[in-house]
């Protein structure tokens, strides 16, 4: 099953990318995520590994994931190493007005689980889709808030310099 959600954030891709590249932020904006821990020496970048869990129905599902694609300010993709099979992707694209379109793709399943697996994927989709939508809304809120704070700080700095 593959889910796809997107949102437009009033901030440049660099700001969005910097926020997404920091693993400590995930517990703040990812809805349903109960665990997001760095596993190993590499904190971010290609090959970085995280142990993550997301609550779906009666279980916290997830496992060990690894970043398999790292294209700054454009694409970050991960794939599962252990646990439930999953692939995900952050896709950032600059819009003509300077804003950023953020797309979150998430594919999941359990290979070999047959018809129950297929039914479980269907039943999990609405809840997971809701998690993805809320995650993007929280990401937008956090980054735009950061953007406003940064702009306000810049204005204060300008005023202070002028006086």
């Amino acid at each position, binding site marked *: 099953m593959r889910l796809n959600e997107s949102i437009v954030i009033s901030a440049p891709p660099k700001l969005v990318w910097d926020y997404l590249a920091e693993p400590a932020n995930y517990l703040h904006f990812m809805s349903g995520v109960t665990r997001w821990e760095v596993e190993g020496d590499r904190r971010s970048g290609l090959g970085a590994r995280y142990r993550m869990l997301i609550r779906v129905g009666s*279980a916290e599902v997830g496992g060990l994931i690894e970043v398999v694609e790292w294209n700054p300010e454009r694409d970050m993709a991960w794939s599962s190493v252990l646990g439930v099979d999953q692939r995900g992707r952050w896709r950032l694209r600059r819009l003509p007005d300077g804003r950023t379109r953020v797309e979150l793709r998430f594919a999941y399943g359990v290979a*070999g689980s047959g018809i129950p697996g297929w039914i479980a994927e269907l039943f999990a989709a609405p809840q997971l889709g809701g998690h993805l939508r809320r995650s993007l809304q929280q990401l937008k809120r956090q980054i735009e808030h950061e953007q406003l704070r940064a702009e306000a700080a810049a204005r204060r700095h300008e005023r202070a310099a002028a006086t």
Partner: protein
Amino acid sequence: MAHERDPDGERARNQPRHPWGGGAGGSEQTIFERAKRNGGGADGALRGRLGPIGGVGGGLARAGGEFVRSGSRFAGALAQAGQHAAADAAGRAAREVSERLTADLDDRDPDHLREQLPLLWLLASFWFRGEVRNLGNIPEEGPVLMVGNHSGGNMTPDTFIFTLAFSTYFGVERAFHQLAHNLVMASPFARLLRSGGTVAASPENARTALESGAALLVYPGGDWEVHRPTRDRNKVDFAGRKGFIRLALDADVPIVPVVAIGGQETALFLSRGAWLAQLLGVDRLLRLKVLPISLAVPWGLNVGDFLGHVPLPAKITVEVLQPIDVREQFGSNPDLNEVYDYVTRVMQETLDTLAAERRFPVIG
């Protein structure tokens, strides 16, 4: 299952038969001895169960002898065939049961378990609305003894929900075993359970599992607690069994209490039926101290619950408590009674809290 060649049986078949059927007593002895030989390492209870099977075979042989005495050679051959078939069936059953009761931790199959997780998830999420709290209290690695209160009759939905939660939280790669009654391990579902890490309940199996570094879930209350009447659904009742404390001390592992509520609302459990078990002698034959009487779907009045039942969709909540290091908390030579009282008290307090959260039976 491969059927081993039986040279003694073959020799017996090749021996010249007495024209009058060979004697009923001799036939019965042969069947019983063959059954015992085929039973191999089966325990006493198992051998006890083989007795009636041998008797049935002997009865068949006696019946065959009557026919032969009346001059029918065909009936004699039929009696011989019945004798061999009964003996072979008894031997096969004995071997199979014996194998199922032997703990082989390698029977746990993480891939198979992973493939079963979606089905477990569907049942746990939509039928039982399962909720497992504080899994983070279980140590991240190393052996650990999880001690739970047992509910739900032979269907034990809380065990499946906890197994799902444990396997998704820590990953199916982490070794996790559960102890189950011999009767469960002798059931047709045993193969499925063993691939999920279930082994027959015995101190040896428990020790083996912990020594291998696995997480182990035990239910000290066993069949006594799991079949308690529904009116006692919110009581922790280990029946004074303290073996789990000795196990934790011997293996030097922490005890993590796991408290579940809702399982005893999946049917209307009326009585443990201890008196009935005693009356019918199954307490000696099958190690069953209880023969539960309940009202359950689809049977209505359900005695024994041997065929299981369709559990009502009761909301199941499971809470994992803080680990207890017995030696650290109670000294190097702890009093078992004191530890037992402490563990059951903290579990009962949690169960009372969980019970207070529930507004309606079954719905939760």
